[in-house]
C-alpha cells in the first residue's frame, strides 16, 4: 500500500510539469497583459513597456518559463502582480473558505443523494422514483450560477432567511486559529460563530451541491438496481437472511462502490473552487480570486493557483483510490 501511495505521489511531478507548460503557453496566447489592467486606458506606450519589463514579461518565453521553474523548485510561487503578496499566502488565506464550501456541498449531496437514489431504486417506477429521476435531470440541466442567483434573490434577499454574501456577518466577532470558521468556532466554543458561518455556507453550498446531488442520486439508483439483480443477492435471500442484512451487507455494500468513485471525482471539482457560485455570493474563496486574477491578467496567481489545485486534485484522486481498495478486495489484490 505504501509503495502504491509513493508511486502515485511521484506521478504528481510529470503531471504538474506538463500542466505548467500548458499554462505558460496558454497565458502567453491570452490577448492583453497585466499592464492593461494595472494602467489606465490612456497610459502612454512607453509606460506600458516599462511595466512589462519590470515584471519580466519582455523576456523570451523559454527564459520566463525556466526562471519560473527554478523558483518553483525552491518553493517560491512568486507574488501577485496586484496585491504584491506571495501567491502561496494568497492561496492559503482563501483555501479554508473554499474548503468549507466544498465540504458543505458534498455533505448535502451525499446526505440527500444516497438515500434518495436508494429509495428510488427500491420503489422503481413509483412516485418517488419518478420525482428523483426527474428532479436529478433538472439538477443536471440547471446552470449553477442561475440556481445560485435564484437562491440568493429568493431565499436571501426577498425572504431574508439567509445572509446573501460573505462568510460571516460583520457583527460577529471570531477568534482566528486555522482560518476554517466552523472549525475555529467549535474549538473556541463560539457557537454564534459556528451558526453564523453555517448560515453563510447554506445557500452557496446548496447551489454548488445541485449537480453532485443529481449525479449521486442517479448513480446510486442505477447501481442499486443493478446489484439487486445480482446472483449473490439471490443467494443471500436463499440463505434466509433477514431483509435488512441482505439490503445492507449484500446490496448496499456492493452498490456503493461506483458511487464512492463518483463522490471522489465530484469533490475534486468542488475543491478546485466554484468560480461562479463564489462570485455570486461574494464568497472570499479560491474561485472568486481566480476570477479576479483572470480579469487582471495576474499571471503568477493564475499559474500558482492552478498548479496547487491540480496537485490537490491528484491527492484527492489518490484518496479515492485508497478508499476504493479498502472497500473492494478485488482491487486490493492487483
Amino acid at each position, binding site marked *: 500500500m505504501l509503495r502504491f501511495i509513493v508511486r502515485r505521489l511521484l506521478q504528481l511531478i510529470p503531471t504538474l510539469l506538463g500542466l505548467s507548460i500548458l499554462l505558460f503557453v496558454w497565458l502567453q496566447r491570452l490577448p492583453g497583459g497585466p499592464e492593461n489592467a494595472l494602467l489606465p486606458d490612456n497610459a502612454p506606450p512607453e509606460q506600458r513597456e516599462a511595466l512589462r519589463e519590470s515584471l519580466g514579461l519582455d523576456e523570451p518565453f523559454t527564459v520566463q518559463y525556466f526562471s519560473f521553474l527554478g523558483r518553483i523548485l525552491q518553493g517560491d510561487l512568486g507574488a501577485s502582480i496586484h496585491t504584491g503578496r506571495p501567491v502561496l499566502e494568497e492561496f492559503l488565506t482563501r483555501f479554508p473558505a473554499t474548503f468549507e464550501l466544498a465540504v458543505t456541498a458534498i455533505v448535502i449531496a451525499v446526505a440527500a443523494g444516497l438515500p434518495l437514489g436508494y429509495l428510488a431504486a427500491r420503489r422503481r417506477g413509483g412516485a418517488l422514483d419518478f420525482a428523483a429521476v426527474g428532479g436529478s435531470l433538472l439538477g443536471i440541466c440547471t446552470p449553477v450560477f442561475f440556481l445560485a442567483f435564484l437562491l440568493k434573490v429568493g431565499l436571501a434577499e426577498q425572504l431574508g432567511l439567509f445572509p446573501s454574501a460573505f462568510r460571516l456577518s460583520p457583527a460577529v466577532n471570531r477568534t482566528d486559529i486555522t482560518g476554517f470558521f466552523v472549525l475555529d468556532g467549535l474549538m473556541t466554543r463560539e457557537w454564534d460563530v459556528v451558526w453564523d458561518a453555517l448560515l453563510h455556507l447554506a445557500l452557496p453550498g446548496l447551489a454548488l451541491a445541485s449537480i453532485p446531488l443529481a449525479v449521486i442520486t442517479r448513480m446510486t439508483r442505477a447501481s442499486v438496481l443493478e446489484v439487486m439483480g*445480482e*446472483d*449473490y443477492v*439471490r*443467494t*443471500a*435471500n*436463499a*440463505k*434466509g*437472511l*433477514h*431483509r435488512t*442484512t441482505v439490503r445492507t*451487507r*449484500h446490496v448496499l*455494500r*456492493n452498490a456503493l*462502490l461506483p458511487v464512492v468513485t463518483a463522490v471522489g471525482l465530484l469533490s475534486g471539482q468542488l475543491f478546485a473552487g466554484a468560480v461562479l457560485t463564489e462570485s455570486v455570493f461574494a464568497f472570499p474563496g479560491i474561485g472568486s480570486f481566480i476570477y479576479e486574477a483572470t480579469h487582471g491578467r495576474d499571471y503568477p496567481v493564475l499559474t500558482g493557483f492552478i498548479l496547487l489545485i491540480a496537485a490537490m486534485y491528484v491527492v484527492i484522486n489518490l484518496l479515492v483510490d485508497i478508499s476504493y481498495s479498502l*472497500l*473492494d*478486495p*478485488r482491487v486490493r*489484490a492487483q
Partner: protein
Amino acid sequence: MSSNTPLLEVEELSVAFGGRGSTPVRAVDGVSFSLEEGKVTGLVGESGCGKSVTSLALMGLLPERGVEVGGRAVMQLPKGPEDLLSLPQRRMRDLRGSQLAMIFQDPLSSLNPVVPIGRQVTEILKRHRGMRGQAARKEAADLLHRVGIPDPARRLDEYPHQLSGGMRQRALIAMAVACRPKLMIADEPTTALDVTIQAQILELLRDLVTEEGTALLMITHDLGVVAGLCDDINVLYAGRAVERAPRRPLFAEPTHPYTVGLLGSIPRLDAPRGEPLSPVRGSVNDNIDWTDGCAFAPRCDHYTMECLQGPPPLVERGDRDHVHRCVNPVGNAGVAERTTLETSAVVGEEEDR
C-alpha cells in the same frame, strides 16, 4: 413422520409471468412430483423448459410482482406439513437456509465479491443457529473442511475471487448444508465447472445425501449427471412433465419421444466410428401451446394427427412409477434405440459405483 409420506409433494405447480395487459407466459404448467429423504430426484430438460423457475418457486425466490404461482407444494416440516407456496414471505425466510437450501449454477456470481467466504458462511449460522464469534468461525471452518476445502481456517478470510471455481462451488455447498436442511435444490451446480471438478462435486452431493438423508432435487440438462446421481427422473418439456420414471426404466425403456431424443443426442464413446448423433431437431421456440395439443409435436418424429387434438394426459406405462404424456409413445418401434439405451443405463450405473 411415516416413512411412506414423501418429504415434499408438489402437485400441479404452475408459474405464469406477466399478465396485466399482456398475455401471461406459462413457464411451468401443472408439474407434479415428490421428493423423498435420502433420494435424488432429477428435473431434466433443455433451456427454457421451466426447471429453474420450478426451483425458485419452491424456494419462494420468484419476484413478488408480476408472477402468479399456482398448485401446492406440501413439505413435512418439524411442526407438521405445510404448503410452501402459500406461506408468507417472513415464514419462508425462516425456512430458507434452515429447512430448504439451494445451490446455484454459477459459483462466482453467486458469492458476494466483497465479503470474505467465512463471513458468508457464518452469517447463515448466526441467522438460523444463533451461533456467534469464535464458535461460528469454528463451525464454518468445519463445514468448509467437510465439503473438501483444504486449509479451511485460512480460507475463511479469503474472498471469492481468490478461490478456484470448484472451491467456490464447494463453499456454496457448505453454506447450503450449514443448517442440515431436509431438502436441497441444486440448479445446474456443475455447469460452470470443468469435467473433473464436476465429478468431484457430484460425488460430494451424493455423499451428503446418503450421510444426512437429505432429499436432493437435481436440476440439470446433463443426462450424464442424471445417470450418475438421480434415483427418480422427471423430464420437463415446455413447462410440463412429459415423462417420469426411476432411473433404470427411464434409461432402459424411455417412452416419450423427447426423452428418446435427449438420450440419442449424447455423444458416446462406444458408438461405432463416424456414426452421427441424433439430436432433437428444432428448438424450444417451435413449441405450440399445450392447450392445442402436444407442445413437442412440431419437433417430434412420431407425431400423428391425434397429437394435435387437445393436450395429452399423463398415462401410466404398465407400472405406477413410470408415466408419460404421449398419445403415440415410442414402443416396439424404437427397439433399435432401446438396445443402445439399455447399455447406456448400465454404463450409468457402473459410473455410480
